[in-house]
């Protein structure tokens, strides 16, 4: 927001106790002085640091930052009855405190509070939840089950009249509470918006298990959650089909994080050609062998194949998602981080220790069993086999560089100088956990891989 005054008015404000007030007839606002004109606070680290009061990490998800001491004037909200005006041109940033439309009126008030001149602008503040679509999958959580789940649209979304014929469908990963699903989706939506994306953003929310970070890593439900992911894939396939049937000509770009890639992989395995146009895997918790049958064992991961010698499991993952290329009409693209501890440690240990998922599952003489039932139930459902019995022979694609069958190399999240995702837990979702400026290359490349021109 820019407020310009002429020299005579500036003189009145500076020396004669005139004031500049901001009046909204609709939504409520917070107003902050801008360090610079324009939107460089979003792209320039120096400007951002001045604007955002010194913190080096601005985390959209947990919303923590380090306040400067003493505080920068740029981080302090203005008194709307007495805006600080010291120049002919004055720049502000505002944030909405409530949704609505109305007029924003700038008033020059004399020392007794009477407006002597004013100017107005239209203003519209929207709740972000009205700006993107939330699709919630509901499934039968019993294992195994043959029922197909369903999906519902969360009410409140209002499509923009300027919306282009594109959908970006984002699928979250394991262990996300509703709050986290929402935060990650909104962070991605905002960052894609600033990349110039003005199609529809869809957050596909599926029922992963969650736990508190206060407990040891959630050993108990990762595998169960993988089963839910496969079942949710059936629901996503139906949603993609509905888009195709009822919104012909829409280009659907899929992006999934971590275990959300099981959801998308299964959905694309079930979908007919053309139901999606692009797919970017980010930090995907899926064995690389799912995308490549790899007859010569190039992708074999020594620890897993060694473990197979002493504790065999069926080779069920291999090749299970290789048909996605036919649906997309092109290869999917992999955004990976060879240091991501979700895979270099957690994924590995889970496959080594809990495949089969003892003590409730075991594998014997070529057959898998679930033992708490009476008598033991033989496991034949491939979703249950993969999530609870089968150990992959390859590592996760999230730490696998290069071409992997139907997936091509996209972006190394560690080697990129700006992104520089490392080996802490926070790096596993760095595209949302790290600040806007640091993650620009991620969203730029995401748009590029979706063949969407940034800021055309």
């Amino acid at each position: 927001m820019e407020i310009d005054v002429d020299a005579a008015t500036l003189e009145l404000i500076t020396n004669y106790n005139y004031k500049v007030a901001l009046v909204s007839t609709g939504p409520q606002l917070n107003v902050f002085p801008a360090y610079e004109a324009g939107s460089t606070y979003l792209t320039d680290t120096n400007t951002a640091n001045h604007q955002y009061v010194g913190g080096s990490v601005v985390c959209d998800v947990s919303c923590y930052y380090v306040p400067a001491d003493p505080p920068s004037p740029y981080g302090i909200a203005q008194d709307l009855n007495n805006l600080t005006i010291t120049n002919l041109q004055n720049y502000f940033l505002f944030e909405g405190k409530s949704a609505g439309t109305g007029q924003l009126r700038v008033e020059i008030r004399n020392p007794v509070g009477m407006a002597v001149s004013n100017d107005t602008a239209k203003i519209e503040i929207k709740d972000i939840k009205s700006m993107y679509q939330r699709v919630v999958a509901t499934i039968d959580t019993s294992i195994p089950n043959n029922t197909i789940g369903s999906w519902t649209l969360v009410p409140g979304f209002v499509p923009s009249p300027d919306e282009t014929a594109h959908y970006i469908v984002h699928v979250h990963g394991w262990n996300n509470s509703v709050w986290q699903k929402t935060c990650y989706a909104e962070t991605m939506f905002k960052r894609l918006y600033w990349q110039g994306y003005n199609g529809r953003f869809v957050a596909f929310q599926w029922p992963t298990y969650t736990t508190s970070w206060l407990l040891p890593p959630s050993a108990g439900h990762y595998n169960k959650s993988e089963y839910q992911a496969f079942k949710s894939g059936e629901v996503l396939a139906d949603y993609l089909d509905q888009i195709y049937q009822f919104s012909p000509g829409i280009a659907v770009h899929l992006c999934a994080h971590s275990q959300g890639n099981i959801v998308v992989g299964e959905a694309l395995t079930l979908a007919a050609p053309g139901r999606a146009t692009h797919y970017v895997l980010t930090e995907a918790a899926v064995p690389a062998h799912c995308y490549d049958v790899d007859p010569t064992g190039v992708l074999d991961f020594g620890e897993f194949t060694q473990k197979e010698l002493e504790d065999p499991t069926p080779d069920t993952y291999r090749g299970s998602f290789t048909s996605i290329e036919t649906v997309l009409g092109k290869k999917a693209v992999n955004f990976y981080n060879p240091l991501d501890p979700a895979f270099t440690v957690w994924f590995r240990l889970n496959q080594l220790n809990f495949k089969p998922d003892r003590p409730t599952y075991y594998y014997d003489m070529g057959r898998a069993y679930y033992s708490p039932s009476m008598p033991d139930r033989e496991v034949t459902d491939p979703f249950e086999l993969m999530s609870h019995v089968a150990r992959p022979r390859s590592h996760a694609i999230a730490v696998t560089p290069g071409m992997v069958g139907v997936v091509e190399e996209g972006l190394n999240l560690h080697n990129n100088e700006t992104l520089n995702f490392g080996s802490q837990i926070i790096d596993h979702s760095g595209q949302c956990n790290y600040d806007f400026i640091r993650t620009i290359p991620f969203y730029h490349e995401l748009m590029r891989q979706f063949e969407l021109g940034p800021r055309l």
Partner: protein
Amino acid sequence: MTQKNKSLLLTAILIVLATIIVWLLLPKRKLPLPGSTPRKLSGASEAVSSISTPNSKRHEPETRSEHASVSEEQAEQQKAKIIKQAMEREQVPLDFFGRVVDETGQGVAGSVVQVSSSHFDLLRPDDLSLGGEKLTVQTDSQGDFSIKGLRGYSLVIRVGKEGYFTSSRNPSGFNYVGDPKLNFRADPQKPVIFRLVQKKGAEPLLYHRYKAYKLPHDGNQLFVDLVTARTNSPDPDLKVQLWTDEKSKDSNFRYDWRVKVEVIDGGIQESQEEFDFIAPETGYSPFVELEYPRSLGDNWKRNTRRKFLLKLRGGRIYGRMTFGVVPGGERFCEVEAWLNPSGPRNLEPDPNLQFSNSDAYNAHMAKQKQATK
């Protein structure tokens, strides 16, 4: 009942009780846990097992009696315990030996080495910023450094020094756990090499962060003025043409496409160098063509991004650019460019001397001129 009969009855009761007590005290088989030693196979089951998993070691069949008494809840508790123990075993020594060299291969003394180690801090898994240590060390007079005493599962190492550029091709992430063939192993006889390149001195430059331009795909021309980054300029520098033939898609969804980039009054040459900060005087061609026929097979690409050096406006301006093309979807090219409008061939960047438009650049140069006077 006689006394003798009573004694017999009492003896019988005692025998029954003793039998029950002995049976109750007999050791029961425990649940098999991951990592436990596999038991030997009997001959019959061995034959079946060897059919299903020909490479497997001997593995005793598991039976229902070993699992039935465990509820889902108990199983989850056991798993949490096991995974915690496994993670604790992942804390291995993170020793490291490195050497920092310059562009001539000489060791760089006094380089700053920033080290981040990672481990799972199972006592405080709620704090995402924990789980590792950060430290800084400096190279010795030979450019060598070493790290000892840290434990965890990986290291991230970044090197730098005032007055030097750091190569983005330096290795930086080192995993110490997992597949032994892929893991990093420290060897004092073979230190990991990190490269720095000495700065020669930056010039004020015009810098255009990625600008994207829609491209026709039938060979129609797009003109770009690299000084203003505009397409509707009377002084264009680049002529870009794209041809795609999506109808030629093969069974692998590849199709023929090519792009031609022509410098209107100057030349262009591709650069493979990371620090191509001095534009050569010669070696330029009027245009480059990037071709991606289906016949490239697995080397075919859906998009491309390359680096070029530029001689513009009859040699009055030198520059470099990263040029990308996305021939599908919305079809566009992207240009990130550094130009030296004052004539010298020096293209070394300095973030404080980069200007996003000609006005800011010219104002800076005028100020500099004034200061020199």
